[in-house]
């Protein structure tokens, strides 16, 4: 962008400012003629073109005035560097992030009982929790082991479909299917891991992208098993330790509201699913935090830093990579059944590349390797996707927000790496 690259004028030079603003207005004009100037409208079932040159003029004038004001403001204020610009964002040290984490957990637990809460809010929170879990899973692969995976959605799909299919064919319950989904996804992770052992960086990313598409296309075309594009419906809902959430319990069982002497409320099921994923996500978080402090976790990070040095230290890169793929895939696979249970219907459409990109965006925006950052990024991105009020501008705002985060926080929202162990304790010899 030639315009943006212009150095800010040091002093107020009228002619220069006008010229600069006029150039910006000219660019706006060129863009506005096709985008705003003409509008296709349907009049009596015939398509005609209406001109909107008045709107165009307003837009161009606004760009001219805006650019002029921006330049004047820049000239009046001292030039600031990127470091200084980010200072208004709070820095997050260990104590603050621990506080933030506990606060987040408290809000998450209280959420269904807050006054503004509704079925929609709880549903949205469930979706957010699913994305948090997916983000944490992908974080093992991308953030810790440094293996760029663009097909992560495949493991999510394996988890969701294994629940749907096992429930349909073998009448297994949600809780029986959950470990199966995790194990199946982990074995898919190893299956993906083997062919890509020798690949790194861009090449690895391309193969994982292909893997994600292969899984989606198999789901789409293996109609006898997966029902193809029509998807699988009537997925059973999880029960509360054997007590179904139903207005009228099936014969031989007691329903949840009867057992606890409550009046029937369909929200119970939604809230229960939310708590179930919340509990599992927190357990997964403890699990990964623990792994990070074990030799396996340090080997992942060492692999990310330098594979050649790992080899020279006697670390087998094959097992390290495969374990990262397997653990990451398992976490994705565990998130799958929750999605299937929430929707009660799944189809290959839900597992497109866009989903992989969304999960990767959560990991990158959150700050690679940061568990709390991923939660924040998931809340922001899922929230942005749900901006119903803005209708068609939703994706525009979504994109702009992503650009904004990357400009102000190039290494993610929370990018501080906490050492897995310390010699001198918390404040020891910190310089």
């Amino acid at each position: 962008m030639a315009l943006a690259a212009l150095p800010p004028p040091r002093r107020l030079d009228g002619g220069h400012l006008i010229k600069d603003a006029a150039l910006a207005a000219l660019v706006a004009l060129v863009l506005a003629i096709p985008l705003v100037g003409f509008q296709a409208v349907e009049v009596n079932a015939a398509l005609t073109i209406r001109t909107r040159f008045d709107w165009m003029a307003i837009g161009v004038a606004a760009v001219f005035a805006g650019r002029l004001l921006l330049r004047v403001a820049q000239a009046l204020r001292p030039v600031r560097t990127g470091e200084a610009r980010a200072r208004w964002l709070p820095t997050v040290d260990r104590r603050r992030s621990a506080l933030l984490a506990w606060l987040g957990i408290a809000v998450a637990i209280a959420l269904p009982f807050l006054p503004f809460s509704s079925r929609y809010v709880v549903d949205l929170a469930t979706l957010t929790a699913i994305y948090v879990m997916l983000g944490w899973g992908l974080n093992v692969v991308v953030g810790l082991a440094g293996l760029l995976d663009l097909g992560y959605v495949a493991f999510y799909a394996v988890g969701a479909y294994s629940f749907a299919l096992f429930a349909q064919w073998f009448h297994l319950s949600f809780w029986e299917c959950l470990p199966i989904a995790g194990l199946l996804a982990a074995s898919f992770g190893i299956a993906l891991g083997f062919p890509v052992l020798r690949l790194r960086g861009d090449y690895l990313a391309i193969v994982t992208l292909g893997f994600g598409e292969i899984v989606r296309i198999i789901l789409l075309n293996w109609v006898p098993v997966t029902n193809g594009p029509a998807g699988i419906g009537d997925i059973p809902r999880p029960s509360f330790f054997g007590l179904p959430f139903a207005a009228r319990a099936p014969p031989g069982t007691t329903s949840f509201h009867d057992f606890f002497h409550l009046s029937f409320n369909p929200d119970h099921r939604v809230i229960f699913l939310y708590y179930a994923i919340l509990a599992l996500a927190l357990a997964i978080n403890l699990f990964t935090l623990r792994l990070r402090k074990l030799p396996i976790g340090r080997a992942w990070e060492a692999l990310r830093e330098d594979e050649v040095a790992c080899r020279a230290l006697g670390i087998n890169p094959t097992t390290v990579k495969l374990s990262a793929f397997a653990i990451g895939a398992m976490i994705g696979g565990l998130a799958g059944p929750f999605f299937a249970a929430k929707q009660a219907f799944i189809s290959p459409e839900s597992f497109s590349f866009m989903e992989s990109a969304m999960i990767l965006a959560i990991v990158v925006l959150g700050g690679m390797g940061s568990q709390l950052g991923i939660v924040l990024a998931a809340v922001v991105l899922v929230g942005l996707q749900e901006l119903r009020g803005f209708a068609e501008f939703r994706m525009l705002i979504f994109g702009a927000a992503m650009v904004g985060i990357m400009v102000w926080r190039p290494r993610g929202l929370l990018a501080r790496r906490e050492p897995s162990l310390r010699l001198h304790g918390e404040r020891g010899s910190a310089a």
Partner: protein
Amino acid sequence: MSDPAAARLLEVEHLTMRFGGLVAVDDLSFTARQREITAIIGPNGAGKTTVFNCLTGFYRPSVGRLALHRPEGEFLLERMDGFRIARHAGMARTFQNVRLFAGMTVLENLIVAQHNRLMRASLYTVGGLVGLPAYRRAEAAAVAKAKDWLDRVGLTERADHPAGSLPYGAQRRLEIARAMCTDPALLCLDEPAAGLNAHESAELNALLRDIRDDHGIGILLIEHDMGVVMAISDQIVVLDYGRKIASGTPASVRNDPVVIKAYLGAEEDEALPPEIARDLGGRA
């Protein structure tokens, strides 16, 4: 002084490494002994680093036998994968361009070096997850060992800093400490003195002598800094164009006319066209 009675540690016999038509190492044989520092020297491109890469499994040699003698048996390095050479045969190396885990802390670098022992102690992660006391003891021992090495290379103060933030000389020392944390039988150092100032070089000499004398291991060294090589080596192997042109004690190598010729190219001026030779002579 080279002591023929010292135990043979590494025997390299007829090592040849070809890359297509290029012969990088040509029929090289030498022996490195325990409790000795063996230096491999030679002009740039003589094939020194290639020898290292063959020894540590990064290349598979075209011809040759590389035998490492350990109390538990003989390891034929040319048949082993890179990471197995480090894990089982006890061969540790550093790199010409320092390869630390830059984003991890100094301490973590030394703990990662003890990965295999800790992995066994954690019962391949399962025991570590449930917090087995045996694993906690093993981790404490690993930290103690790392602390010991940090003290020796003078980096204890900076243990919790990212390794990439250290000054260059400190990174070199840390890389040696990291290699030593794998409990090697043979330590291979690729130009450890490159980029060090005179003071740091002297410290390095002392450190390498200590390692040789206290740990009783062999050290194999590639080095350009003749001050370091002559001061600490027990034996020197000189390579030129992939071939061994001389070997022996520092004193004998220093005075070997073949070596002097390889380094200074004494006779080669005569092969130049007369006008160029005159130019060179005129400038000098």
